[in-house]
């Protein structure tokens, strides 16, 4: 896996996690399920890799965590979006939109 690709994927993962947390605070398993469902099972990630990403993002102050209890009364760590995380999400969303637009432009280009 080349570096550029890895960075793109990692950036994308961060972006998706942030999006997942906009609805409600969620634990890692919940984030994985939300990603699965909302992408109609198209985006399937290695779920364990969520965690290094989560810790990294918490360190950057985009998300905050606290221990709570899951639906099944199991001890679980819940992540919540911070104000900075929200800003980050908006900035990334905008960048994503522009990228998609640019790529579509390129793809729609007719020969001639």
């Amino acid at each position, binding site marked *: 896996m080349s570096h550029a690709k890895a960075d793109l994927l990692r950036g994308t993962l961060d972006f998706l996690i942030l999006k997942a947390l906009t609805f409600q605070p969620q*634990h*890692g*398993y919940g984030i*994985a399920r939300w990603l699965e469902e909302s992408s109609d099972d198209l985006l*399937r990630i*290695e*779920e*364990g*890799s969520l*965690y*290094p*990403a989560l*810790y*990294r993002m*918490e*360190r950057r102050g985009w998300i905050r965590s606290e221990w709570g209890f*899951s639906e*099944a009364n*199991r*001890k*679980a*760590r819940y992540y919540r979006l911070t104000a900075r995380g929200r800003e980050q999400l908006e900035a990334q969303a905008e960048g994503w939109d522009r990228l998609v637009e640019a790529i579509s432009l390129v793809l729609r280009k007719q020969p001639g």
Partner: protein
Amino acid sequence: MSSPVDRWIRIWSRLSRRRLKGEVEDELDFHMEMLVRRFRSQGMDPARARAAAEDRFGDPSRIRRRAVRAESSRVRQEERALYMDNLRQDLRFALRQLWKRPVFSIIALSMLALGIGANTAIFSVVYTVLLKPLPFPEPERLVRIWESRIEQGWERASVAPGNFWDLREMNRTFEDLGAYRFSSANLTGMEIPERLSVGRVSAGFFGQVLAVRPVLGRTFLPGEDQPSGESRVAMLSHQFWQSRFGGDLSALDARLTLDGESYEVVGVLPAGRPWLDYADVYVPMVRSPEDTRSSFELAVIGRLRPGITLEGGRRDLEAVARRLEEAFPDALAGIGITVGSSREWAANAETRRALWLLLGAVGFLLMIACVNLGNLFLARATGRVRETAIRAATGASRGRLIRQGLTESLFVSLVGAGMGLGLGVWGVAAITAMAPGQIPGLNEVAITGWVLTFTLGAGVLTGVLTGLVPALQASGEDAASTLRTGGRSVSGSRGQRRLRGGLVSAEVALSLILLVGAGLLIRSFGELMGAERGFETDHRLIASVNVPDTYGPAEATEFNLQLVERISALPPVVSTAAVHIRPLAGGSTGLGFVRPDDPEPEGGIPWASWRLITPGYFETLGVPILRGRDFTRDDFAFTGDGHLPVLISRRIADLLWPGEDPLGRTITLWAGQTGRPGEVLGVVGDMRERGIDQGPTLAVYLPYVASGWPPDVVIHTAGEPTAVVPALRQILVEMDPNIPLSDITTLEEMLGQSVGGQRFLMVLVSLFASLALLLALAGVYGVQSYSVAQQTQEIGVRVAMGASRGQILRKVILQAMRPAFLGLALGIGGAFALSRFMAGLLFQVEPSDPTTYVGVAGVLCVAALLSAWLPARRAAGVDPVIAFRTE
């Protein structure tokens, strides 16, 4: 990431890694478990569900590793933030506390400023004078070399010129040996003639031994100290270059006329000390076949070859000395060599001891300030017991409480250190202004990096010491019981009372030690000033008349006698005389003396200083002529080989002719040397003329007939002594306009200077001791009134039960005095042990001087009693009703 805080945090996180790992694992396990449960609910059997979950989750061990790494860096950052946050909070808290109690803060800060300021000032002196490295490359290879005659009891004599040249040539362990001899010369050819100090040095002295680079020009060349070489060359000291040539390059083209000989200036030395600042001008000391082996004249230094130890150098020189002894068995019988490290150059043993003593004194002062401060914090911590207990109960950890206490005390002591630094700068200026000339390099004292480090260190140490005890004490209280009793206790807990008692003992002991030191120095100084000097010092002017060597003996004699006659004709002059070495100057000329019928007395030939004088010397100095008579002009006309007419001091008379009449007797002078007979004309009183802290000298007085010894004139005036200086100059201009007058001073001033070191030490130590006493009293009084106030209720109960005022007074005072007595005992023991180090600094006072100890202990006892009695009296007058209401 290299600040100590960061490092500390890293260590801490490593310790907490296990906890962290546990949390990460919990989280990952939860995820796996949920996945497995999901696949199971879709109908898979446990084993397949597990496999599917693992497939979906990814390699658990790899993920765990990555996760732990990410998580620990996050935790680290969080902890650091928390730490900084706490620190900020603690500092704000400390500031608020200080602000809320301005009296407490002012007292605490000024005590600290005083203690740290005194330490800063003294340390900068100690650093500059004793610790600062010498301004020469590889100073550890430099040594000082002396001749010794161990059998005759002297270990450190200057080196005889003849021996120096041999030691220099025959040793195998030194890069070079250098010799220095102080002399002076008349500088003429300028507007007014001037007396210069001239250092005569062997050629390698500056360039090879000290290895200094000249600021300008060159150092002396190897041949310039040999009889065959060109030796009319001179180097200027930096100071002389600045003052005489304005630091101009043209100095190199200049020629100086010294004692009538013209010298070419070849170089300028850098500024610095020692050696470089000893003289105005340096010229080569020229080797001569007549160089003596028995006159100890040269200061000799050496630069050891790389890798040679001081002891190795000494053994080598000692071997050379053995060979010289074989070659010159008469002159050099028993010759030995002493070698000393260059660390001793900066200051002599006495100065060093005095400075360490001063540093010790301010150290004690700071300790007392610390104890006081610790006590203040303790009292305040006790006052805050309830607050602390509440904080502890609401979840503040013990460590956090201690840290908060420490932050506060460190903050206070660092602010105090800052103020102390300011005070120290001022103190350095004050010390420099009052210090006598004897401490070398004092004018260079400055606040340097080392001094700043020292001050900072003192501040931190103070903060930790003063903050730790109360912080531990306060946080150690059992929160629940404190809250139950409402933070009130009848008279403080037992532990606290013991701690406060300990503080009182410490203060009393520390101040007693300092006071004993000061007392000994004061007594010693009193003894010194009260000692029988044997001569008068008031209204006596003294000046050097630099008659050049070009005057022959007859010419010089006539000049001296005429000069004295003309001076005594001046109206304000009571009497006057000339002498070749002035009293109290420290220098001396000496001779051995015996009775002709006992040429080899038991215990060796005694040694006396000799002085050339003109008639009227004893009258002028107020020295009694006990028997016989003074010289007259006729005594100056004796023939060359006959008996020299002499006057002797009483101690010589008592030594040679106990109980007999010495008048008219013959005495052999320069016994064991050239040997000349003298006839005793009179006996005069003994003088402490080598310095009043030295014993009375044995002295032989001779008529002033030789040339080559320019005279000092001593003038006893009716009025202000310096008023005769213009008339003196006028007489000299009339007699010979080329002779400069120099070193004009009064005997009073010389006396002041000769005891300047002792006075300086006494004044400073007394000052520090008084400050210490003041601080200690304030501290003891504070503790006593605090503990009495704590007993108010108990006393009230006793009063209500019918105890009399006297009974209560007695009880409170007795209780308060117990730690004070313990402190007295400890202090006396400590003073006894420490004052031994002062032995060399005391004049006719024993370090264990009972008067001082009893006096100081008495003063402290009364002071402690007073500081217990005042609060006790207040307590005894307590109205029980009020006492019960007090909380």
